[in-house]
């Protein structure tokens, strides 16, 4: 039973202290009044984990200030107090106390101690005993059946029974293994007795003498088998050698046939002679080629000189050109003489004309002839001047004609010389081309002669190799024949050796079979003698032990099966019992009867009535909320010793009548002196808190005795206590002035 909650710097409160009454406690107030803060303080104190907020740091009302929560609760006659904080200093004060004595210190140790005292693991407390606001739909989607099932195992001791089942299974397996082993021993004993009986019938009274005789026979057969094997190996080797000789002779014959032809010595001689002839021909061609190349060089020199020579110089070597040159030179000399005369005459005519021109008559003196120094009359001078001019024209024409003749004569000579030069150069080029062509042809002949010589040398080497290989083959044949005798007898000898080999193999197989039979007899006899020497348990005693182990195995099987059935039935029975109680509560709440609850698909609960079978999701929102509250109430009362529930907005989805019925059901299910249910709700609107307040004024509703104690700081939200017949309401009213002092609980 929760008795007191104290917080400092906790969400909506700076400092606040709330004393709770036995029975149903309802907290009313508008949004932000701090109703959920109280419930979450309880959850945080008991589990150390946040429920609504994602992070415990968000619990602090003023950042950086220490946060502390303390919750007091009663179990039987003992009073516990748990304190938790968030800052480093406050974390050091995390502790669980009982009767002034510290039971645990530190967050994890306190959580474990609370789990031990309440019998409720933290996750079960958070998922079952604390119903956060809006948990209805989350519950329907992910029902806490897994947590319930795990908790059932702990509450009903199923963990211990599971260990017993493990032990029973192991014992059953061990007994079965022992019985199987004993069955094998009994089987062996039975076989042993059978073998001994057969041995006595087979070996008689003196098996050791027979054992010695069999051992002697085994040694003899081993020696005979060894000799037969040696003979067989020897014949195998002979046959192998003969076969190899025959194969070698056949291979030699094939190769000799391939090399067959004329006499190898004569062939070598002919090839050698051919090589010599080809070499001589090649040398002759080389000499001719050298001569031609020398002639080609001379022609090249002559051609060079001819090209460098002036055409007119060819007259020295060419008589025709020389005669033509001499004739032209004679003509030229004549022309030069005529030119000289004409030039001299022309000069005289010009001098005369110049004199007569420069000595005009002045009237005083008459001009005189420069030759005869006679005075020249003017008419005469004029006539002479005219004659001089005519003569001068004649002389110039004569000179021009002579010069043209002179040029024509020289040009003709030069043309003749050039033509001769051209003819000589053409002839020289023709000779050079002929020589080059002859060299090319000779080089081709030389290449062919070289190839022919190479071919002759190759044939010569082949002839040498053939002669050498024939010699080797003859030597090998001689060697093989010398080693194996006459080759004509070889097939007959091979057939004889093969026949002997077959006989030797048969002899070896016979000896092997005989030896195997003797060894088998000896092994059987040895086994019989060993079995005879061994001591074994009597089959009758083994049979008794088999009966004992069969009985143990049966008892172990029954025990293990019953333990497994116990686990299944206890788990199913506990769940069924829980569901049955919730079904009865649901019958009273809903008016449906009869109601049966069963686990449906995916662990969800289904409601079965006489007329319908509904998944929880098919119920209305209010019905689902009421169902969830009832389920929480039952599980919280049944599993765990804390005996309290924390319900946030439990009547949110219910109408007035349903809310009233649910409150009455909750109150009726609370034990008279213990177990709390804390519910919070809004005091306005259509929430359940207003209805709870209204119910409190309803005449005839059950009353809760006593008064609550509430102490608030001046800065905390104020609260107004309301005693009602239906329960104790703590209505948070921020507009109401806060009391200055708290009242003792």
């Amino acid at each position, binding site marked *: 039973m929760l008795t007191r909650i104290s917080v400092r710097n906790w969400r909506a409160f700076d400092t606040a202290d709330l004393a709770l009454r036995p029975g149903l406690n309802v907290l009313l107030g508008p949004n932000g009044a701090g109703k959920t803060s109280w419930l979450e303080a309880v959850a945080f104190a008991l589990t150390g984990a946040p429920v609504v907020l994602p992070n415990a740091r968000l619990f602090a009302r003023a950042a950086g200030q220490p946060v502390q929560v303390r919750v007091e609760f009663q179990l039987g006659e003992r009073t516990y107090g748990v304190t938790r904080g968030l800052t480093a200093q406050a974390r050091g004060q995390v502790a669980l106390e009982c009767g002034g004595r510290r039971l645990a210190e530190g967050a994890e140790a306190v959580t474990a101690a609370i789990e031990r005292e309440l019998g409720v693991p933290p996750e079960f407390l958070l998922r079952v005993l604390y119903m956060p606001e809006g948990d209805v739909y989350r519950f329907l989607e992910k029902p806490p059946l897994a947590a319930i099932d795990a908790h059932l195992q702990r509450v*009903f*001791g*199923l*963990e*211990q*029974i599971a*260990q*017993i089942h*493990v*032990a*029973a299974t*192991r*014992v059953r397996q*061990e*007994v079965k293994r022992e*019985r199987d082993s004993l069955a094998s021993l009994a089987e062996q004993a039975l076989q042993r007795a059978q073998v001994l009986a057969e041995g006595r019938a087979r070996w008689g009274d003196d098996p050791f003498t027979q054992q010695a005789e069999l051992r002697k026979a085994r040694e003899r057969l081993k020696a005979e088998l060894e000799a037969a094997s040696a003979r067989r190996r020897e014949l195998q080797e002979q046959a192998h050698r003969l076969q190899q000789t025959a194969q070698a002779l056949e291979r030699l014959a094939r190769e000799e046939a391939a090399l067959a032809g004329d006499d190898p010595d004569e062939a070598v001689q002919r090839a050698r002679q051919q090589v010599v002839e080809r070499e001589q021909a090649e040398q002759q061609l080389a000499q001719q080629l050298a001569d031609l190349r020398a002639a080609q060089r001379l022609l090249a020199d002559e051609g060079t000189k001819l090209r460098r020579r002036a055409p007119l110089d060819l007259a020295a070597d060419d008589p025709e050109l020389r005669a033509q040159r001499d004739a032209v030179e004679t003509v030229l000399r004549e022309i030069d003489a005529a030119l000289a005369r004409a030039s001299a005459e022309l000069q005289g005519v010009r001098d005369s004309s110049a004199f007569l021109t420069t000595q005009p008559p002045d009237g005083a003196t008459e001009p005189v002839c420069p030759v005869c120094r006679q005075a020249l009359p003017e008419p005469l001078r004029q006539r002479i001047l005219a004659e001089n001019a005519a003569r001068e024209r004649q002389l110039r024409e004569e000179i021009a004609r002579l010069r043209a003749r002179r040029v024509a004569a020289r040009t003709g000579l030069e043309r003749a010389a050039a033509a001769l030069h051209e003819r000589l150069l053409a002839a020289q080029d023709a000779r050079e081309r002929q020589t080059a062509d002859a060299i090319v042809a000779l080089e081709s002949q030389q290449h062919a002669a070289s190839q022919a010589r190479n071919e002759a040398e190759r044939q010569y080497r082949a002839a040498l190799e053939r002669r050498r290989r024939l010699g080797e083959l003859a030597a090998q044949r001689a060697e093989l024949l010398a080693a194996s005798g006459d080759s004509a007898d070889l097939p007959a000898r091979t057939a004889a050796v093969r026949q002997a080999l077959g006989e030797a193999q048969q002899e070896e197989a016979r000896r092997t079979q005989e030896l195997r039979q003797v060894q088998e007899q000896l092994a059987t006899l040895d086994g019989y003698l060993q079995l005879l020497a061994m001591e074994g348990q*009597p089959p*009758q*005693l083994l049979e*008794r*032990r*088999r*009966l*004992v*182990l*069969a*009985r*143990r*195995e*049966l*008892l*172990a*099987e*029954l*025990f293990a*099966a*019953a*333990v497994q*059935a*116990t686990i299944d*039935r*206890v788990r*199913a*029975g*506990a769940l*069924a*019992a829980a569901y*049955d109680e919730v*079904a*009865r509560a649901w*019958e009273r709440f809903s008016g449906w*009867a*009869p*109601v*049966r609850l069963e686990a449906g698909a995916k662990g969800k609960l289904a409601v079965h009535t*006489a007329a319908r079978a509904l998944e929880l999701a098919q119920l209305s929102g209010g019905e689902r909320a009421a169902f969830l509250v009832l389920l929480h109430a039952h599980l919280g009362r049944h599993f765990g010793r804390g005996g309290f529930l924390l319900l946030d907005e439990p009547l949110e989805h219910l109408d007035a009548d349903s809310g009233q019925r649910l409150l009455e059901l909750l109150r009726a299910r609370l034990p008279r002196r213990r177990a709390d249910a804390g519910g919070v709700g809004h005091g306005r609107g259509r929430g359940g808190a207003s209805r709870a307040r209204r119910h409190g004024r309803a005449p005839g509703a059950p009353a809760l005795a006593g008064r609550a104690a509430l102490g608030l700081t001046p800065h905390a939200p104020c609260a107004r206590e309301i005693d009602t017949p239906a329960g104790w309401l703590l209505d948070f009213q921020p507009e109401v002035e806060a009391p200055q002092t708290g009242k003792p609980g």
Partner: protein
Amino acid sequence: MEMQSVRHRAPAVDAVRPVSVFRAALLAAATEQRKSRARSPERVAAVSRLCDADLGMLVSEFEALLAESAEVSRLVERLHAALARLAPEPRAEEEADVDAD
């Protein structure tokens, strides 16, 4: 009337008492073994020898194991001892009788 039938079908308090459940399950398993056909003569003999005293001892052993430590090796040891009491090894004189036979 329907309500009464539903209450009658509801699991009783025995459903959460492991020893009671174990006793019922053991009786059911023994009955099933007696009805089934055994495969081997030893098994037939073991089933025929099964009596209520054996089942009572197994129930007592289960109850004792519930209070025992959860260590499996210890539980195995106790179970072997219980089985040895219920089906003891052949005594020396029996072996002598067997030898005499």
